[in-house]
C-alpha cells in the first residue's frame, strides 16, 4: 500500500469504495471503520456538546488539597463579579477556554458574565489585519481604519453594562472598551493572547494608549510582553483535562481509532497534530521522519485540519503529500475540527509526539501531548520553551536534523523517554490545567483588591 493519502472522513467513504484496499494509494476503509466504531460515535457529524464538568470532578486529577486551595481563594471574593469580554462565542482557543472558565468561577461563587462584542464585516476585517500586524506582519494603518475600529468599540461600549468588580477584556478587538470605564472601584484588565514581541509599530502605537488605561495586562509568555507602565502578569494558556481532547479514554477507543486510520500499534508511532499550515513545518516533520527511519522502524501520523475550508491549507496539504511521496509509513489525516476524541486517541496511541513549528503561539498541542505523558520533541519557538524544559520535560530542537536525531534517540532510549513523559505530565498538572487558570484569576482578583497579599515569606 502506498501512503500520504490525506484521509478526510467526509470524503473517504467514496474514495475507499473507489480505490479499495491494497491499491497504489493508502486508503482507509471508512465504512468498515465506522461500523467498528459504532460503539464510540460517528465522527462525520459534530458530537453533542457535553455538560460542563463540576469542580469535584477534578478531584482525582489535582487532588483534594488543590481543590481546597481554590475554594479558600474564592471565599473572600464571594459575591464579587467578573465580566469577560471577547470577540467570538464559538471557535478559537479563547472561546474554548471561557466556555470552561466562566462556569468554574461561578461555581466558586464568583459570578462571572461573558459578553461578546458585535461588529460588521468591516470591523472584523480591520481586527484581523490588526491581529496579524501585531504579530509582526507589514501593515499601513490608515485613518479610516482607526475610525472603523473605534466606532464599533463605541457601539459595543454603549450596548454593554460594566457594573462588575473586575472587567477582563480579551485581545485587541475590544481593547478600546476601556473608554467606558467609569466606576473607579472596579478593576479593568487586558488579557492579551497573542505574541506582541515584535508588533507593527503603527498598530501598536495606536492601541497602546488604550492599553495603558487598564490596571494590568496579562500575557501568555514572558517573551510576548511589551514594556508598559502598568503591571504585567503571566498567565499560561491551559487545557481542560476533562474535555474530549484530554480526558482519559478506554483503550478500546484508542484501538478503534487506530484501526480506522490504519495505524499499526505494534510499531512505534510518531505523531504531529497541527493545521496544514507552513508555520507548523509539516514538510520539515516528514523530512525529519525520513532521516530517522533510516535507523529506526516507525510510522508517522500527521493529523490536522484546515485543508477543506482554507485555500492555503489545501495548498500546504498538497506539499505535504508530495513530500511524503510513496512512503507507506506516512499517514496524513485531514480531520474535521470536531474530531477531538480521535485526536485524543491518536495522541494516546503515539510513542512520540512532535511539534516542529517555525512560529507558534503558546502551542497547546504540546500541552496536550505532555498531559498524556508522551515524550515530546518540539521547536524552541513561541511559548513552547515555557512547557518543554530541555531534557527534563521534553526535548527542544532547532532543525530538521535535530528533530530526526531526537526521534532516533527517544525511540531507542525508552527509559529516558518515559521519564520525560512523566515529568511533562507533572509540569502540565502544576502549570497548564484549567483549574490552575481559575486559580490565577482568583489570585489576580485578590491582589487587585488588596486582599491579604503577603509580603515575602
Amino acid at each position: 500500500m502506498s501512503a500520504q493519502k490525506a484521509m478526510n472522513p467526509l470524503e473517504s467513504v467514496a474514495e475507499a469504495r473507489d480505490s479499495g484496499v491494497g491499491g497504489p494509494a493508502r486508503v482507509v476503509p471508512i465504512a468498515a471503520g465506522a461500523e467498528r466504531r459504532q460503539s464510540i460515535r460517528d465522527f462525520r457529524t459534530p458530537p453533542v456538546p457535553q455538560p460542563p464538568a463540576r469542580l469535584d470532578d477534578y478531584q482525582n486529577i489535582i487532588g483534594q488539597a488543590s481543590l481546597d486551595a481554590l475554594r479558600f481563594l474564592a471565599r473572600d471574593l464571594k459575591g464579587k463579579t467578573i465580566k469577560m469580554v471577547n470577540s467570538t462565542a464559538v471557535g478559537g482557543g479563547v472561546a474554548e477556554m471561557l466556555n470552561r472558565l466562566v462556569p468554574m468561577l461561578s461555581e466558586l461563587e464568583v459570578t462571572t458574565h461573558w459578553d461578546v462584542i458585535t461588529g460588521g464585516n468591516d470591523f472584523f476585517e480591520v481586527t484581523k489585519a490588526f491581529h496579524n500586524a501585531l504579530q509582526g506582519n507589514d501593515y499601513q494603518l490608515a485613518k479610516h481604519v482607526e475610525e472603523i475600529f473605534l466606532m464599533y468599540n463605541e457601539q459595543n461600549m454603549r450596548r454593554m453594562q460594566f457594573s462588575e468588580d473586575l472587567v477582563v477584556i480579551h485581545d485587541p478587538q475590544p481593547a478600546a472598551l476601556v473608554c467606558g470605564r467609569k466606576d473607579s472601584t472596579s478593576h479593568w484588565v487586558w488579557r492579551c493572547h497573542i505574541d506582541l514581541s515584535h508588533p507593527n509599530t503603527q498598530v501598536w502605537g495606536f492601541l497602546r494608549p488604550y492599553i495603558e488605561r487598564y490596571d494590568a495586562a496579562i500575557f501568555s509568555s514572558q517573551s510576548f510582553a511589551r514594556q508598559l507602565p502598568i503591571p504585567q502578569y503571566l498567565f499560561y494558556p491551559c487545557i481542560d483535562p476533562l474535555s474530549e481532547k484530554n480526558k482519559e479514554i478506554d483503550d478500546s477507543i484508542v484501538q478503534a481509532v487506530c484501526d480506522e486510520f490504519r495505524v499499526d500499534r505494534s510499531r512505534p508511532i510518531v505523531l504531529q497534530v497541527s493545521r496544514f499550515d507552513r508555520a507548523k513545518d509539516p514538510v520539515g516533520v516528514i523530512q525529519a521522519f525520513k532521516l530517522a527511519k533510516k535507523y529506526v522502524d516507525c510510522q508517522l501520523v500527521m493529523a490536522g485540519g484546515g485543508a477543506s475550508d482554507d485555500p492555503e491549507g489545501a495548498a500546504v496539504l498538497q506539499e505535504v503529500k508530495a513530500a511524503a511521496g510513496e512512503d507507506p509509513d506516512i499517514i496524513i489525516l485531514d480531520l474535521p475540527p470536531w474530531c477531538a476524541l480521535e485526536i485524543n486517541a491518536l495522541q494516546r496511541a503515539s510513542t512520540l509526539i512532535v511539534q516542529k513549528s517555525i512560529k507558534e503561539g503558546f502551542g497547546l498541542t504540546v500541552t496536550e501531548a505532555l498531559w498524556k505523558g508522551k515524550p515530546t520533541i518540539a521547536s524552541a519557538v513561541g511559548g513552547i520553551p515555557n512547557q518543554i524544559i530541555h531534557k527534563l520535560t521534553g526535548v527542544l530542537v532547532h532543525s530538521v536534523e535535530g528533530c530526526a536525531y531526537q526521534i532516533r534517540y527517544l525511540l531507542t532510549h525508552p527509559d529516558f523517554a518515559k521519564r520525560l513523559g512523566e515529568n511533562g505530565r507533572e509540569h502540565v498538572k502544576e502549570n497548564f490545567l484549567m483549574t490552575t487558570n481559575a486559580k490565577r484569576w482568583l489570585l489576580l482578583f485578590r491582589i487587585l483588591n488588596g486582599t491579604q497579599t503577603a509580603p515575602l515569606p
Partner: protein
Amino acid sequence: MSEVETQVRKSKKPFYFNTSEHLLRIGREKAANLSELLEGLRRCPANSVFQHTFRTLQEHHFIRRGFSNDFAHWTLSACNEPALAERLASVDVREFTSLEDLRQSLVSVLEEYVRDNPDAAARRAEESFYFCAADIVVLPTSFVPETLPGFADGLRRVSVHSIHHHFIEARLRLKLMSNDFSQWLLEEMSLPDEARAINRIDIYTATMEHVRKQIIGIVEHAV
C-alpha cells in the same frame, strides 16, 4: 518521654498548616547575555530573586535532578556555559535567611565568571532571560493538628505547595537556618533529634513528594 506520652501529648500551640499561592509578574529587566544577567540581577527587586530561586524549586517540584534555579538553567540551556551553570546551581537557597544575601552570593559567582570570561559574557544567548517576580497569597488549610499523629496526617494530606511553604520558604520568614516543621517539633514536642533530621533532608536530590515522604517517615518514627 514514653511512646504513649509522645502520641497523646498536645502541643500548647497547634501547627497551622498554611499554603502559599503565587502569581507571576513579568519584570522590566531582561538579559540577552551574561553581562546583562549580572546587571539585571543587581537591579531586580528582591521578589525576582525569590521567584527565580525559591519559587522555581516549587514550580519544578517533580524534577529530581538537573533543576536548581532559573539562573543556572538559563546559563546552561541558553548560554551553553556549563561551568558557570554548575557554580550557580550549587548555591543552596537553604543557606540563606535573607534574599539580599542570596542575591549577593549569585552576583559574586556571576561577577567572577564575567571577569574571567569576557568573551562569554558578551556572547548573545539563544533566548533572552526575562526577570519575573512572585506576588504571594498565603492561604489557610483545614489542618491544624495539636498532636504528633495529627501532624503526620496533615503532612500526608496537604499539597506540596504547603510543604514548600513550611519547609523551604519558611527560613526567610523565620530568619533561622531551619523550617516550620523542625521548629514546631523542637519547641512544641521537644523532639530535637527529629527536628534536626528533618532539617537535613536534601531538597536538591529529591522531588518534593519524596521530601514529604522523608518528613512523614521521621515523624511516624517518633510516633
